[in-house]
């Protein structure tokens, strides 16, 4: 045992709640237990993820052939499809996903705490999230049609188009508040609720990544909120901020938008890196290589990530001086990111790797995220970006980071922590087959986008020239294989809830604190005060295989 003073207790948080009655709908909807809130986030996010995936499949289906393919999709509807796909996927799933689901469930467990610092605020964050989600869904049925601006809401189009764009912007504003409050809660929890003996450098790397993420959430998210409010002020009060006709500057909108939205990429990816670090140590059964370097590189990514937003704007006519600085700074982000990847690879070197499903997702993350990261470099270079900007190359790059990296890490984390969250084991064989389908489908779906982009295929176009057809078709076939993998995974998780084998407390021989309590944990996580006596990944020498 790595930790002293832990006495497992068999009443789980499913049987004991924070409300009068331990079970029933009310006991969930009013629960301030971080674990129940995490599971409510998970349920809601899987629903929104399914909607966004369906929209993505429709987009790919429309692009299967040159010219109109689906009879009910015209240019306007196609614009709505990619806008809603982006808004739902980014604001309702990828940005809040890892912190809200796994952060809520596992941060207090990994710290040896009973809950987060502000449990009621945590529940309030969840309801803000749901309010934002409802606003986003309402925007679909607004008079004048669904939002069609793209998820970036660029002006001047966003205040010239129908009112749905305003509703979607308002949704993003409310969701931003949810994100800020979650970040605030996590920063406070990490500072004030660590178990006795747990210094900062005894925290698991997932917790470190949440710490870096939480700072970004607190400091960067207000910028997008204010920006969206300025769009409203301009539209309804004719205040000249972004509209040249009123004396405003449309490029200023892009500055403000990307000041948030680029750091938001790190809100998405840092927790993914944290999950991957934890899973690597567990399935290699050894101390992670370069623990401090990985921990501190999360913080440096968080800091440098603030300074690079201008690389989204190289073709907008920003000053050459500024463009050069942003380009240089963007290359700097590759340094801490590269440090992580080298440390992960070094951890695997000569390790006896156990290829369970979560580890497969970890390996896929490293492979796909590396491609996503490296294809970011041509976009960070001023000369090549002029050719590649707003082409399918950008789509390929972004999806290799967001889906191939973050979402794969999310699924890996779900397999990894599923036994702890639900007290049941998933089906390993189905897990592996589902992973293979997703891996093949994903790469078939997104890799052709790099080639399409290099050939000049612009993003967000409803139609294209026949010369692009074969690559588009390949991409669409990939989407079907990926969807099959996702369905199998969903089936596996749902079926295992009832029919899965009972999970042991520590099925993977993990060393972080969440594995030292029961599966699922009791209401207050541990029934005795935790005393941490060694590092998070300290495997005794004789146990290192």
């Amino acid at each position: 045992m790595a930790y002293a003073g832990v006495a497992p207790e068999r009443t789980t948080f499913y049987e004991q709640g924070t409300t009068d009655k331990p079970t029933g709908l009310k006991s969930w909807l009013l629960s301030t237990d971080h674990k129940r809130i995490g599971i409510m986030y998970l349920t809601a996010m899987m629903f929104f993820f399914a909607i966004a995936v369906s929209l993505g499949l429709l987009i790919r289906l429309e692009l299967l052939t040159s010219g109109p393919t689906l009879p009910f999709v015209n240019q306007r509807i196609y614009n709505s499809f990619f806008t809603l796909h982006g808004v739902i996927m980014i604001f309702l799933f990828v940005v809040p996903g890892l912190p809200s689901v796994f952060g809520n469930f596992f941060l207090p467990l990994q710290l040896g705490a009973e809950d987060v610092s502000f449990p009621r605020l945590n529940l309030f964050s969840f309801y803000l999230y749901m309010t934002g989600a409802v606003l986003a869904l309402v925007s679909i049925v607004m008079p004048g049609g669904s939002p069609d601006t793209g998820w970036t809401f660029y002006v001047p189009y966003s205040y010239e188009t129908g009112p749905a764009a305003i509703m979607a912007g308002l949704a993003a504003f409310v969701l931003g508040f949810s994100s800020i409050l979650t970040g605030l809660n996590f920063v406070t929890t990490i500072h004030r609720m660590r178990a006795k003996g747990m210094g900062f450098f005894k925290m698991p790397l997932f917790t470190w990544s949440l710490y870096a993420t939480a700072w970004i959430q607190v400091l960067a998210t207000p910028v997008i909120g204010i920006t969206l409010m300025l769009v409203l002020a301009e539209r309804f009060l004719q205040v000249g901020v972004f509209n040249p006709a009123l004396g405003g500057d449309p490029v200023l909108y892009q500055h403000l938008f990307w000041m948030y939205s680029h750091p938001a990429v790190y809100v998405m990816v840092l927790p993914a890196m944290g999950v991957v670090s934890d899973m690597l140590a567990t399935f290699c059964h050894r101390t992670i290589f370069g623990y401090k370097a990985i921990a501190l590189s999360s913080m440096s990514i968080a800091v440098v990530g603030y300074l690079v937003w201008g690389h989204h704007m190289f073709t907008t006519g920003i000053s050459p001086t500024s463009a050069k600085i942003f380009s240089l700074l963007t290359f700097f982000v590759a340094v801490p990111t590269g440090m992580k990847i080298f440390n992960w690879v070094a951890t695997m070197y000569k390790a006896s790797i156990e290829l369970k499903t979560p580890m497969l997702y970890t390996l896929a993350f490293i492979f796909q995220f590396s491609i996503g990261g490296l294809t970011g470099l041509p976009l960070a270079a001023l000369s090549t970006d002029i050719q590649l900007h707003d082409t399918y190359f950008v789509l390929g790059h972004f999806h290799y980071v967001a889906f191939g990296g973050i979402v794969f890490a999310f699924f890996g984390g779900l397999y990894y922590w599923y036994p702890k969250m639900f007290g049941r084991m998933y089906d390993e064989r189905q897990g592996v087959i589902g992973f293979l389908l997703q891996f093949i489908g994903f790469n078939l779906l997104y890799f052709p986008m790099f080639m399409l982009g290099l050939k000049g295929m612009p993003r967000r176009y409803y139609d294209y020239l026949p010369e692009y057809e074969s690559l588009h078709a390949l991409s669409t076939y990939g989407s079907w294989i990926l969807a099959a993998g996702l369905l199998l995974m969903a089936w596996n998780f749902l079926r295992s809830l009832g029919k899965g084998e009972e999970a042991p407390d520590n099925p993977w021989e993990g060393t972080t604190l969440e594995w030292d309590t029961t599966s699922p944990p009791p209401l207050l996580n541990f029934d005795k005060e935790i005393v941490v006596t060694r590092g998070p990944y300290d495997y005794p020498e004789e146990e290192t295989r």
Partner: protein
Amino acid sequence: MSHDNSHAHHEPIPYHVFVIVWIALLVLTGITVGASIFFPGVIGITVAGIVTPLKAFLVMYWFMHLKYEGPAMKIMVASAMIILLILLAGLLGDILFR
């Protein structure tokens, strides 16, 4: 639990301190408005750029009790301010040299 006990207890702040800070804020607002009326353009904006952070400082330091907080809270607020400065510098790097 290991506590980062940064919240220091302090005596209640006398009302006259708040009144003085309030008057200072009004005077500074007057300076900003006056500068924008009598010296519109670069001078007005420069004055606003200097006076506004000063006002923010007064509000945070006295009204929001930052003066009586421990170092952890001060570091948090300072880092937010540094980020804000960085964002403004990045913005001006484009607007001034475009």
